[in-house]
């Protein structure tokens, strides 16, 4: 089956989507297209600048320096290529900086562009996306899915279409089969699918809403859960016995789930409607007269069902639609979290009003810009990486000599008062917006009930149609039976006539009594047979007429059903229109909620700062003669306030966070730090030269040769190291993958595993082999610090390296391995700073 959404209304590419208005209503949202007055020329601020402006707006601390060039270099390599820079790459960067120290910012930007253009970026980011979508579940091979994602990234196709593909694929199109991994890896379990469509595509974890309205989160309602559920509950896992039980997704054409709360014993069941949050719903679904019409392939034991109208493919379209604000927010937030360590909303799958974004303005900006750049992952990441916010230092600022914000506590109080006034204004608007939403919702409900009435007429007419079809079938059977009898009677007559003829011949030869009597008997029978036939002949016209009438009744009823269905469709237009109203009202409300939450966040920032200032004043004003216990108490209070303040600044992205490497980065960092790729590169290079000995053009095609070498390195990386290291440093399959993981078995492996010590053994081309040939301890220190930590050693560090090497001249090889090991095992290596 075709992998594209098989939808009578939608083509694959968004440019071709015209009739989606039918679903979404006439609701070009003002929030999505930005301000109408927005200038269209190129002087528009870049996303990077806008990010920095928003972050700076709510920060009132001392100036935070940029990360050093070394820190930036390692950070950006880890985030975009999943490894640290090699010594050569670091040297090249340093050379460029030294040539033009004043252009440091430009050189950083150029580096970002270069990294994003590399094949290595697609390779690494495919892994990041794989983890995002599958959370390390495996049914379809992980490598296949990663390859498919890599292809997508290499072709520079938009990320939202990738998401559409993933939700729509059923595994039958070999070329795009890996896209089906999202559902297949979850065994097409409808609850699992519902939960992860909510979490991964919309940022909402509706798990508890499966059985009742969410106990902790007011926004998450059971109806929302079943809204998604009814998009996917018709989808099922089909294993093809003819192909060794290869899994595919099948889908039924029927099944409307009903739900009631487990907390309410006697609660009536509600029939779920396929819908996504923020009033995106399927209001208009086709009515099929029967199963023949409803299916392209009907469900059978050994046959994968394919419906003519697929709800899952509707989901694929609706969930990833550029007008789906939650989708945009979720995707932008997840990409942001990949670069920054935490999401603007964090945890990334908990978008709801009790867990507000640290800056709603920032979240809104990121979501809008993601749409504006047409979901181009490189364009988006480039801007994030170019921002000063991304490039800030991780170091905790020294506040001892900072005098505090201008105007001190008083000015903070003044601002607080202003915010309180602003909040009042928003609150009034919000109440109005809530009223508007409630009236729009009521209107929608009334239109829906109109349609439901129409729908019930359609159902009733369809039922009658079934009955009438049954009746017609009965009449047709009767007719056939009459015809059979007619035929039989005719056959009898013919046979008897033939017998008579024979008897006549016999009678001419031997005219005796016996023959005569025989003739008489046959004649009598012939008369009876003729009479029978005549009787049957008489029955026929009546029955033919009965069939005709029954058929006519069926036809008439068919038209009636169709008429009712199209009448229902006409009524549906009102629902679609009313839903547009709900969407607009909801969007309006969301905007106000965003503003409110930003005011709240600002108030919190101010309070934290004000508390810190007050506590510092108190500490400073304690006389030197004061009791030690009093001083200690105040000191503790101050430390606490200061920690809180700095955490708040970090959370608001004014200071960068120290981030633990993920499993893929850890593997990539170890592999490249130890220069294990070098022997593989050399071998692949030689292979290429040998293979294309007679073909100078091919032999010297640098791009093709590099691609060959990169592939060889990627394969070797996976085999020797990545597959083990990746799992060891990651959360288990199916669990959220964004936490930092430190366990004893990681440490045990790095300390003692035979494999780790094989990696450390000198091997031509690798780091420990290379430095063994270097005599000067200073240069040894320089090389291992550059290779492992991507920075130059400080004097004290060089001194210790020198000391260790000089003290143990006989154990030089062992010492070199220990030095490299110690840096690999160090916290500086484990984190991105």
């Amino acid at each position: 089956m075709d992998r594209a959404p098989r939808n009578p209304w939608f083509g694959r590419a968004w440019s071709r989507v015209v009739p989606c208005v039918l679903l979404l209503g006439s609701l070009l949202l003002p929030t999505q297209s930005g301000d109408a007055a927005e200038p269209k020329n190129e002087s528009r601020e870049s996303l990077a600048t806008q990010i920095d402006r928003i972050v700076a707006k709510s920060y009132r601390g001392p100036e935070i320096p940029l990360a050093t060039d070394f820190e930036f270099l390692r950070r950006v390599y880890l985030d975009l290529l999943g490894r640290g820079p090699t010594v050569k790459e670091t040297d090249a960067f340093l050379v460029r900086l030294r040539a033009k120290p004043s252009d440091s910012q430009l050189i950083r930007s150029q580096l970002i562009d270069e990294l994003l253009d590399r094949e290595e970026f697609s390779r690494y980011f495919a892994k990041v996306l794989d983890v995002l979508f599958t959370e390390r579940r495996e049914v379809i091979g992980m490598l296949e899915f990663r390859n498919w994602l890599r292809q997508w990234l290499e072709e520079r196709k938009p990320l939202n279409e990738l998401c559409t593909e993933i939700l729509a694929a059923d595994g039958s199109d070999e070329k795009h089969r890996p896209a089906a991994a999202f559902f297949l890896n979850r065994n097409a379990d409808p609850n699992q699918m519902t939960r992860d469509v909510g979490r991964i595509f919309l940022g909402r974890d509706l798990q508890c809403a499966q059985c009742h309205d969410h106990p902790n989160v007011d926004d998450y309602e059971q109806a929302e859960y079943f809204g998604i559920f009814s998009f996917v509950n018709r989808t099922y896992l089909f294993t093809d016995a003819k192909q060794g039980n290869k899994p595919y997704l099948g889908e039924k054409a029927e099944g409307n789930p009903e739900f009631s709360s487990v907390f309410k014993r006697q609660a009536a069941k509600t029939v779920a409607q396929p819908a996504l949050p923020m009033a995106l719903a399927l209001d208009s679904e086709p009515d099929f007269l029967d199963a023949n019409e409803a299916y392209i392939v009907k469900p059978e034991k050994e046959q994968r069902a394919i419906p003519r109208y697929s709800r899952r493919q509707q989901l694929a379209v609706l969930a990833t639609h550029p007008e789906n604000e939650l989708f945009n927010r979720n995707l932008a937030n997840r990409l942001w979290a990949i670069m920054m360590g935490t999401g603007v909303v964090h945890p990334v799958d908990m978008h709801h009003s009790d867990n507000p974004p640290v800056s709603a303005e920032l979240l809104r900006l990121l979501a809008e810009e993601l749409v504006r750049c047409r979901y181009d992952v490189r364009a988006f990441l480039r801007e994030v990486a170019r921002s000063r916010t991304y490039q800030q230092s991780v170091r905790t600022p020294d506040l001892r000599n900072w005098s505090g914000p201008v105007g001190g506590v008083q000015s903070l109080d003044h601002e607080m008062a202003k915010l309180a006034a602003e909040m009042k204004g928003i609150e009034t608007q919000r109440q109005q917006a809530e009223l508007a939403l409630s009236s729009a919702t009521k209107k929608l409900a009334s239109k829906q009930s109109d349609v439901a009435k129409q729908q019930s007429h359609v159902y009733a007419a369809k039922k009658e149609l079934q009955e009438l079809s049954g009746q017609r079938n009965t009449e047709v059977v009767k007719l056939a039976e009459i015809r059979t009898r007619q035929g039989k009677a005719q056959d009898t007559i013919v046979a008897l006539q033939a017998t008579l003829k024979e008897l006549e011949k016999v009678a001419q030869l031997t005219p005796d009594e016996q023959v005569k009597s025989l003739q008489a008997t046959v004649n009598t029978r012939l008369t009876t047979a003729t009479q029978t036939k005549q009787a049957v002949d008489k029955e026929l016209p009546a029955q033919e007429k009965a069939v005709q009438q029954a058929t006519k009744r069926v036809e008439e009823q068919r038209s009636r059903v169709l008429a009712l269905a199209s009448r229902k469709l006409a009524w549906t237009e009102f629902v679609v229109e009313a839903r547009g109203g709900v969407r607009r009202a909801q969007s309006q409300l969301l905007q106000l909620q965003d503003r409110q939450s930003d005011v709240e966040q600002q108030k919190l920032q101010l309070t934290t700062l004000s508390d810190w200032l007050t506590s510092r004043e108190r500490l400073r004003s304690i006389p030197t003669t004061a009791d030690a216990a009093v001083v200690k108490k105040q000191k503790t209070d101050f430390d606490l306030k200061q920690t809180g303040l700095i955490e708040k600044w970090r959370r608001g992205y004014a200071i960068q966070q120290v981030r633990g490497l993920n499993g893929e980065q850890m593997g990539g960092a170890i592999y490249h730090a130890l220069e294990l790729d070098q022997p593989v590169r050399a071998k692949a290079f030689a292979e290429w030269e040998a293979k294309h000995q007679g073909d100078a053009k091919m032999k010297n095609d640098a791009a093709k040769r590099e691609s060959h070498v990169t592939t060889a390195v990627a394969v070797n990386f996976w085999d020797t190291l990545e597959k083990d290291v990746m799992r060891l440093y990651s959360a288990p399959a199916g669990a959220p993958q964004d936490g930092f993981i430190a366990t004893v078995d990681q440490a045990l492996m790095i300390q003692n595993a035979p494999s780790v010590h094989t990696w450390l053994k000198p091997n031509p081309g690798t780091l420990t082999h290379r430095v063994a040939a270097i005599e000067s301890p200073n240069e040894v220190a320089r090389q291992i610090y550059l290779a492992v930590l991507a920075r130059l050693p400080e004097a004290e560090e060089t001194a210790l390296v020198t000391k260790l090497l000089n003290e143990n001249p006989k154990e030089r090889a062992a010492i070199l391995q220990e030095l490299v090991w110690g840096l690999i095992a160090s916290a500086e290596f484990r984190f991105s700073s």
Partner: protein
Amino acid sequence: MQEQHYRPCGDIEHLLGRRQFMGDLLAGAGLLAGSSLLASPVGAAEVAKRGKSVVVVYLNGGISQFESWDPKSSLETGGPFKALPTTVPGIHISELLPHTAKQMHRMALVRSLNTKQDDHGLANNLVRSGRMTQSATEYPELGAVVAKGLERADFPLPGHIATMPAGVGGRGNNAAYLGPRYASVTVGAEKGGVANAKLPDGMTVTADQRRHDWRRFANSRFRDKVDSVEIDAYTQTYEQALRLIERRELFDITREPTKVQDAYGKSELGKQFLLARRLVEQEVPFVEIQPGGWDFHHNNFEFHLHYVSDFDKPFALFLEELAQRGHLDRTLVVVMTEFGRTPRINTGYGRDHYSRAWSIALAGCGIKHGAVIGKTDAKGIDVTDRQVDHRHLFHTYLQAIGINSSSEFDIAGRKFPIADPAVGPIKELLA
């Protein structure tokens, strides 16, 4: 650490709580080296004050309730074995369990399980996670929940240990959202050990110390620049690993007197019980013993005759020793399996999978000794009284060791109910 720095509510109290928690955790790191490594058994009174433990004996495959905890005299379904009186008047168990029968005053039975799942893998997920979901990765298993619930900052060993007969294993995938810190570490009973606990070939102790000193030097320089609890948690894992290596002997059952080793027997199961006893004495929060092969679709009776007998003696000895050494009062022991076996005896004299009416046994801490919960009918076909399932049991296990099963875990801002909030514990089973 699985937790992130920030709670979305931005509440300073949370931050403080977290800082203090991390502080406690790290303070424990100072308590290095084998001062109490192989300390002599402590007095029972002292033990009572200490941490709780849970031991799960998971009879993988599905032991028959008829040939163990719920024998029936019905000719049609009961099988050839008789019922045996126990130390608790009125309670009878299969005659295949003569030693266990003498421990019944320390035990309790639940005979009214109906779990509605007859597939090994899926049923396994249900009973281990105490939820209705069939996904293995969605909810943490009991072991991970206990390891998290009973976590102690200064504890030098892993909190969730799975024993296996021989060899060494890795980390289980059974902690779901609680994170790998609480996943099972697999330890072999035979050649005693944890993976990667031995120095690499050719490395001297001096060299090992030298490289760790160098590593600590590198860490201290980095730590001066940046401040993060995650950095501390990470550097700490290396010190934990060193402490674990120092305590390797705890996992070596050949350190036990020969008499004791002989009493537990030479069977794989016996060795695992002995290892489990050593670990419980160290107050490891959760230990699992997992003998496999309990799936007798053919020759059910012959196999149970051997298997149950192999289980009976070391299990009874295990309970006896824990009781004598004062550890049974702080240790909950559960004999678990994924489902029972059919009342119908099939043509191969086997019993098939049956989740409609089956039993489990418990012993030790927090439960009412000598209690029998629920009943099945005379032929063992249906539950006739107090039907329960794995969800109720999950609450019960946790309540028995003092974990409030109706509360929630807060993992990086996500809230997770510890046990299924739709049901509660079996109250009459709790002491």
